C-alpha cells in the first residue's frame, strides 16, 4: 500500500511565525501536491510538483512556498503565518497524470 505521511496531525502556531509542514511518500511517486481543505470549499490546490526541484503554483499559492529537494519529500512553508491560514492541510502523491492521488491523513493547523 502507498503510504503518505504528514509530520504532524495537529499544529498550533502564532501569527507571524514561519511554519513548515512536511510530507513524505514511500512509493517513488513523481507528482506531489499540497491542498487546503475548508468547510464548503472542498480541496483547493496550493502548490504541486512534477519532480525533484520542480514546483508549480496551484489555485491559491499566495502566502505559501514549497520545497522538493528529494523525490519522496514535499514541504509546505508558510512564510509568515496569518489567522486566515488556519485550516486542514492535505498532502497527496501519484505516479502519473491519469493515476489516482494518494492522500496523507492531514495536518490541522491553527494560527493564533
Amino acid at each position, binding site marked *: 500500500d502507498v503510504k503518505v505521511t504528514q509530520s504532524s496531525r495537529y499544529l498550533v502556531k502564532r501569527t507571524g511565525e514561519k511554519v513548515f509542514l512536511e510530507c513524505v511518500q514511500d512509493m517513488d511517486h513523481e507528482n506531489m501536491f499540497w491542498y487546503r481543505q475548508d468547510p*464548503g470549499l*472542498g*480541496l483547493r490546490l496550493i502548490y504541486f510538483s512534477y519532480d525533484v526541484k520542480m514546483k508549480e503554483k496551484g489555485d491559491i499559492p499566495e502566502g505559501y512556498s514549497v520545497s522538493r529537494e528529494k523525490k519522496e519529500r514535499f514541504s509546505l512553508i508558510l512564510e509568515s503565518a496569518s489567522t486566515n491560514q488556519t485550516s486542514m492541510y*492535505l498532502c497527496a502523491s501519484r505516479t502519473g497524470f491519469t493515476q*489516482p*492521488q494518494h492522500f496523507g491523513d492531514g495536518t490541522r493547523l491553527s494560527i493564533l
Partner: protein
Amino acid sequence: TQLLEQSPQFLSIQEGENLTVYCNSSSVFSSLQWYRQEPGEGPVLLVTVVTGGEVKKLKRLTFQFGDARKDSSLHITAAQPGDTGLYLCAGGKGNEKLTFGTGTRLTIIP
C-alpha cells in the same frame, strides 16, 4: 471560482434508504474521480470514470459520468452506517491538476 458544485452539501438518511449525490460543472472534464473521506483521514479514491455516459458499480455504489462529461452522480442503494463520510468528486482535464468539488457530507443513521 469553484468549478465543481456538489449537491446536496449535507445529507442525513436512515439506514436502508437509497440516495443520490450530484457533481455538476460548466466545464468538460476528460475524467472524473470520486473520493470518500472519513473523519481524521485523507480522501480515498473510490472510482474513476473517463467516458461520457459511463456507469461503474462498486458493490452498492453506482457512479455515472454524464454524456457531455460535465457532470456525474453517485447513487447508493440500501445505505449502511459504514457509508458515512465526506464524498468528493474531482475532475481532470488530461493534464496535471485535479479540480475538487465542494463535497457532500453524508450521515447514515442506524
